[in-house]
């Protein structure tokens, strides 16, 4: 795939940053999970090529890196949307109707859990308790807690984040 200049530059910067991170963990297989966390912060997800870089630096077989990436639910091998909507499906939220909220969000965004909208603005996820059970049901957007959430709050929430999307930035991200 060809990239435009600014994306090429962007990718180069990210790999430079990754390289910096990996020098800390050189030949240190025990730091695999930490390294993956940091790499995911840089790239937003863990593409195959990044996994290979990590495997080589830490001296871990790539199969093992892949095994760890797929074992833990917070690691992703596919890119995520710019805004992450997480519906808490822990017990406290579930008994307060989190299931209905999740269904309504799926319908509104027209995606399933774990998927990203076509325009790349939203990724929908579900979590197992975010530790705010007394505010249940809870929905998090980019780590920010929306408490005592109801399905009626959805349209406004979505509209807010879509409006905040700078159209210029949106174009340059489309690759």
């Amino acid at each position: 795939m060809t990239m435009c200049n600014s994306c090429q530059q962007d990718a180069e910067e990210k790999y430079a940053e990754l390289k910096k991170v990996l020098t800390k963990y050189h030949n240190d297989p025990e730091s695999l999970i930490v390294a993956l966390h940091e790499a995911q912060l840089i790239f937003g997800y863990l593409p195959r090529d990044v996994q290979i870089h990590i495997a080589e630096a830490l001296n871990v077989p790539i199969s093992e890196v892949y095994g760890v990436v797929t074992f833990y639910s917070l690691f992703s091998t596919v890119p995520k949307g710019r805004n992450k909507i997480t519906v808490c499906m822990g017990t406290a939220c579930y008994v307060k109707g989190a299931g209905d909220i999740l269904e309504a969000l799926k319908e509104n965004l027209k995606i399933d859990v774990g998927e990203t909208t076509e325009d790349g603005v939203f990724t929908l996820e579900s979590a197992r308790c975010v530790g705010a059970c007394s505010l249940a049901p809870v929905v998090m957007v980019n780590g920010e807690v929306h408490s005592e959430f109801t399905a009626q709050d959805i349209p406004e929430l979505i509209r807010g984040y879509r409006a905040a999307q700078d159209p210029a930035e949106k174009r340059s991200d489309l690759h």
Partner: protein
Amino acid sequence: MGQKEYLKNQQREVLQNCGLINPENIREYIARDGYQAMGRVLTSCQPQDVIEQIKKSGLRGRGGGGFPTGRKWEYAARAVNEDKYIICNGDEGDPGAFMDRSVMEGDPHAVLEGMVIAGYAIGAHRGYIYVRAEYPVAVERMELAIKQARELGLVGKNIFSSGFDFDIEVRLGAGAFVCGEETAMLNSIAGKRGEPRPRPPFPAVAGLFHKPTVINNVETLANVGRIFLKGPEYFAGIGTEKSKGTKVFALAGKINNTGLIEVPMGVTLRSIIFDIGGGIQKGRKFKAVLIGGPSGGCIPEDHLDAPIDYDSLLKLGAMMGSGGLIVMDESDCMVDIAKFFLEFTQDESCGKCTPCRVGTKRMHEILQRITIGEGKEEDISLLKRLAEDIRKSSLCGLGQTAPNPVLSTLRFFEEEYLAHIRDKHCPAGVCSRLVRFEIIPEKCTACSICARICPVEAISGEPKKPPYFIHQGICIKCGACQAKCPFSAIAKI
């Protein structure tokens, strides 16, 4: 008045600093006698005395199982090895619990102090705090606390000039419930897949990097400093004969006062739910309280006067677990909740052993069938048989306890299962395929709103000639009519 009732039955020991001190300033912790116990222990106690004192206090693990902490330390202390480790379990996997999060965020130094004392007792020089990545604030606070303690020489080399070295590091989880299990956690800290392994060897003999290791829960460790500050007798004076001290619970669900509470062991669930919790929301009727999360069970009205301690809860087929209490009212379906937990354990099963990987899947399928009205009477005995097999043959605690929510709901609410199976009816009105919507003739004004909103044209009638009628054969039970009826004339049965 509410406030008084709320506080009357509580006793703040572990939570004594939470919300009172600035957790990002070590001096505020020190001002409240923090690190004093550690100083005394390191400079004037032999490791063996430390273990004896903990045994005398009667402290038992707050992470679920309730294993006596003194004995756990003793095993690790006896193991001969240059390198030993202390691990603080801050994974808090029980969905619906947030006690450990609050302690790590509100009083991080109490956790560190407990770890250093534990390290001294068993002869370890390194500790890890394993925190789930879903708790970024807890991670930040713990890291800051370690940095500040290190700067003051309270963690690191030659603490209090005692010659004892102990350093602490935070390790992050990555979203796997099974990593709360101790042998799985050992793998995860070492950067591997968090799969458990058979025990023995126990971690006290061969743990992290195959070295003797003590794994303790956050709340267990947060109790340690206080035991030395106030004396083991003080601690042993709180609670019941076999369960000492206080326990922090996270109250959530259909209850008026939600939040963290701390009570002496041995208080009744009734007192927690109705005095402290202020009773059920919306004036509804209490149905059951879930305790112990996906490994625990439910406790119905009849048993609310049982004292909360490790042993009474086990007798009731539940368990203390980490301290999540979720209250359910008459509008909650017990079969649905059992299915919810099985879906959780099935999803979180690491897949290493067959009974857990396949068994929980089969149980979940049966429950799924029951909740959509396709259950058979034999399903109940099949569930019980599967439960027994999974319990006996699973590799780790996840599988061994996964059937508990099913067994427990069957024990107290079998008639609810039977209603789903025989009458194809969900008494609580939760399982959507097993409810009916009906128009209440006396309330219907024939406004025709329901007929217009119905997506499948299942409602008919003539305007201004009540009542309208719902054709059950066509109805898809979406509930849209009930939500829109201005006269509350549609009932869910």
